[in-house]
């Protein structure tokens, strides 16, 4: 599809499977929609949900905008929200559920605050209002270091030790394939600490209009369970689930275990009025 974002033309790649309530899935920083490939072929999900996952610009099969070669990619709250809402509106989705992981989890907070009436619910995986930075991300984009291999090594400790080898390494392969500077540019948003912005968003969320569900793996040390619980405490009516033996990439690193958490939640959302 073609979207106009920030006044510029973008070609956006997306995949979909299933019929029913639209479920828009947002991938993590530095990766792409392949993270949701297991969810998209799960009949227990696609029986009742139209699962849609799009590659953010610069990621996966969504090309960067013309002129990209002279630019440094950098994601902001505004550009991220615009991309998601534009995608939903372009497909005329009827009150979709938006589920995002990591940076995709963080963005559901402003979405719920500003677009509650257009959404059925939001699910934040590994999400918090803000997370502590612990790494100089300049290392991720320089000519004398392979950004892909380094990016994957940077996140490999965020997966749970119990996650199966095959899905662990498929998750990391996604990072190894990321374009130069893209992971770093995403992390500009992920670690952005304009505290007042997110406190304001959280205060404005009405979970009676747009329910908020936050699921975090116990092994996630980037967004810890404590970060998520702290965030939920600031959103009246938000629900928190801490996933045992799970890391930062639930839908991708251990799809079988993730099913045990997400299926009951999707059923609950489906049965809401």
């Amino acid at each position, binding site marked *: 599809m073609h979207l106009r974002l920030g006044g510029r033309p973008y070609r956006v790649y997306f995949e979909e499977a299933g019929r029913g309530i639209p479920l828009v899935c947002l991938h993590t920083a530095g990766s792409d929609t392949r993270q949701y490939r297991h969810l998209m072929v799960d009949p227990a999900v696609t029986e009742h949900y139209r699962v849609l996952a799009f590659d953010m610009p610069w990621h996966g099969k969504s090309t960067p905008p013309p002129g990209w070669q002279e630019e440094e990619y950098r994601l902001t709250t505004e550009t991220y929200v615009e991309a998601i809402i534009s995608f939903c509106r372009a497909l005329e989705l009827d009150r979709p559920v938006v589920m995002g992981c990591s940076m995709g989890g963080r963005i559901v907070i402003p979405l719920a605050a500003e677009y509650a009436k257009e959404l059925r619910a939001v699910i934040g995986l590994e999400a918090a209002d803000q997370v*502590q930075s*612990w*790494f100089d991300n300049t*290392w991720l984009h320089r000519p*004398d*270091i*392979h950004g892909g*291999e*380094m990016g*994957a*090594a*940077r996140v*490999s*400790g*965020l*997966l*749970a*030790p*119990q996650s199966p080898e095959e899905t662990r390494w498929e998750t990391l392969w996604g990072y190894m394939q990321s374009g130069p500077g893209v992971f770093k540019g995403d992390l500009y948003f992920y670690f952005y600490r304009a505290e007042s912005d997110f406190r304001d968003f959280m205060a404005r969320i009405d979970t009676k209009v747009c329910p908020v569900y936050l699921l975090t793996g*116990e*092994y996630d*040390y980037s967004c*810890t369970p404590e970060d998520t619980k702290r965030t939920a405490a600031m959103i009246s009516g938000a629900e928190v689930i801490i996933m045992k033996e799970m890391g930062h990439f639930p839908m991708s690193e251990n799809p079988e275990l993730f099913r045990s958490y997400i299926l009951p939640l999707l059923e609950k959302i489906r049965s809401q009025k």
Partner: protein
Amino acid sequence: MIERLPELVNGDERLVWRGRFLTVEFLVEVGDVPYYVSIHSGRITSVERGPFYTRSWLFAVRASVEAWEKLWEPVPRPGYTDILGLMKRGEARIEGDLHPFMANLRYIKEILVAPRRLRGGC
């Protein structure tokens, strides 16, 4: 444990291959005890228990005995899966010229957790 790195690493052909462009001397500190680790093209050529005065190292990885022990559990507990997690918790310090550390991050992380193999981990 650190003194056993040569046997833990050098027999793993694929791990050594991943470090094939790395030749470096670095410091691992376990509590108060410094270990000087020499790597040549991915093989651990020596681990010497210090201290040695006025001896150079390119980068240092330091943590308490307790923190290393938790990192080396066969199935580590949350927060102790890798050296970066320890660093985020404030339980490890990584300092010096970090370019070779970052450029070979997967290899370095893997050799630092190699002692898990002594306890049935992988």
